[in-house]
């Protein structure tokens, strides 16, 4: 292996390999049609092919691969949630992320940085103790740490006791990590396409045909496609696509804005978030500071920016890291997110037979990509809902059995 690498490095022939199959005509029928070529759609296709041998699968997207929220999220991976259902689910996701580069043969640039959430009120300390206890019991590394330890982890953090909201303690989550979000979807899509899955970009699903309560086909801008079943994985447009299939979802759609600064030398290792100030930050491996905050104050399907959100985010981050007051913002963007009433996703079966839901991903979709893909693939292949995602089914709202996660978003909404 080292010699092969040396030979490759010194050689002049370095053929660039195409990741995906060339664009083909759509077939008349697929066993599985996945709407949405984001991380989730690609992961579902990958696990269908890899674990269940189902390869007559098409991934359809009105745009391009990984061009939606997969490209727009801030690449946080963590499992320090509050409810038992969520902790179990995200713990498995973090585990899968850890082995994903090897699994896919594709470098997703995973970095185990750890994640620190700041307590700036007594109430926050109480809720952190609660989360730490639940996390530890379920095998997730979380602990409440004091100011001295915070200073050691993040020496640049402003720890003044005269601040508007002095930092009192922190929730340290050693399992927290980050990865290259684009690489995750590219790796999954490549692995799926190599096994025979078809990726069809610029293919918009315009209507869904249902007969006798079961999905029969989808109509696209490139013609009708018959299908054994459909999985919708279109975070941000979930209500609109579900409406094509004829049902409503417990989702409200909001923009979530983020921005990134010019690069600095490496000064910040952990991912840091402040629920009190509605801001979270990480320094990328390129040196840029990525800033995210809470969702917009009202519902919207539009990625426009607002000065109010940017101003709030900037004011908050300067309070934590004063040196960033001189930083220039290089880019800003917004993603359109599905907010559910209980801040948990909606996964599983839908009111339409053979039509599966992968929706309601709010601000926690990227970190769930591997485990959601694996669980949804199992559901589609076997027809049985895996135990891990049972609590997240759509029916929970009719039974008033929400999975309350409002206390566990990195920046509260």
């Amino acid at each position, binding site marked *: 292996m080292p010699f092969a690498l040396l030979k490759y490095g010194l050689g002049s022939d370095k053929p660039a390999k195409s990741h995906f199959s060339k664009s083909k005509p759509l077939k008349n029928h697929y066993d599985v049609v996945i709407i949405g070529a984001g991380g989730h759609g690609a992961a579902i296709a990958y696990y269908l092919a890899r674990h269940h041998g189902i390869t007559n699968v098409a991934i359809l997207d009105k745009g391009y691969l990984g061009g939606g929220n997969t490209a727009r999220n801030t690449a946080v991976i963590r499992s320090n949630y509050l409810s038992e259902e969520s902790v179990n689910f995200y713990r498995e996701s973090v585990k899968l992320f850890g082995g994903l580069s090897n699994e896919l043969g594709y470098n997703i640039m995973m970095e185990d940085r750890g994640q620190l959430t700041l307590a700036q009120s007594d109430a926050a300390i109480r809720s952190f103790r609660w989360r730490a206890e639940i996390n530890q019991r379920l095998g997730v590394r979380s602990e409440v740490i004091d100011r001295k330890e915070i200073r050691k982890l993040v020496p640049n953090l402003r720890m003044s006791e005269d601040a508007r909201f002095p930092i009192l303690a922190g929730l340290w989550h050693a399992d927290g990590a980050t990865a290259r979000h684009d690489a995750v979807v590219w790796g999954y899509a490549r692995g799926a396409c190599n096994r025979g899955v078809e990726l069809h970009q610029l293919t918009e699903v315009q209507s869904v045909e249902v007969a006798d309560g079961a999905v029969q086909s989808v109509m696209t801008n490139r013609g009708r496609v018959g299908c054994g079943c459909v999985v919708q994985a279109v975070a941000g*447009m979930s*209500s*609109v696509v579900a*409406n094509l299939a004829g049902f*409503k*979802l*417990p*989702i*409200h*759609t909001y923009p979530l804005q983020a921005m990134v600064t010019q690069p600095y030398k490496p000064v910040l290792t952990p991912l840091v978030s402040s629920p009190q100030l509605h801001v979270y930050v990480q320094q990328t491996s390129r040196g840029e500071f990525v800033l995210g905050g809470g969702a917009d*104050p*009202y*519902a*919207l*399907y*539009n990625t*426009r920016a*607002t*000065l*109010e959100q940017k101003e709030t985010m900037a004011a908050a981050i300067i309070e934590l890291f004063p040196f960033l007051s001189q930083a220039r913002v290089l880019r800003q963007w917004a993603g359109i997110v599905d907010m559910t*009433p209980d801040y948990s996703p909606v996964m599983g079966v839908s009111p339409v037979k053979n039509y599966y839901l992968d929706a309601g991903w709010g601000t926690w979709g990227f970190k769930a990509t591997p485990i959601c893909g694996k669980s949804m693939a199992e559901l589609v292949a076997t027809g049985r809902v895996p135990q891990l995602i049972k609590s997240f089914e759509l029916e929970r*709202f*009719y*039974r*008033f059995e929400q999975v309350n996660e409002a206390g566990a978003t990195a920046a509260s909404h």
Partner: protein
Amino acid sequence: MKILHCPLNGPRNIAEFTYGGEYHPQPSPDECDDRSWAEHVFFHDNPAGRVIEWWCHTASSYWFLAERDTGSDRVLRTFAVPKNAEFGVDE
């Protein structure tokens, strides 16, 4: 700054307002089963387009209705809650 025309207070910065979600009539609690009640509470149209919704001018606690395009973020009209039970809203 985005301006919202409050039927009571006139044009004000949208930051002075609280968003109250889309307008949808409440079923009668006495005649409604649990399933329809859950539907009323949790499940909404959430369209990418024109929608009638609740807004409140926070400073004066005044609730009113607005018609807005959730694709373009253009507010098409704002109006006081009509006195009749049906709200005079035809969608």
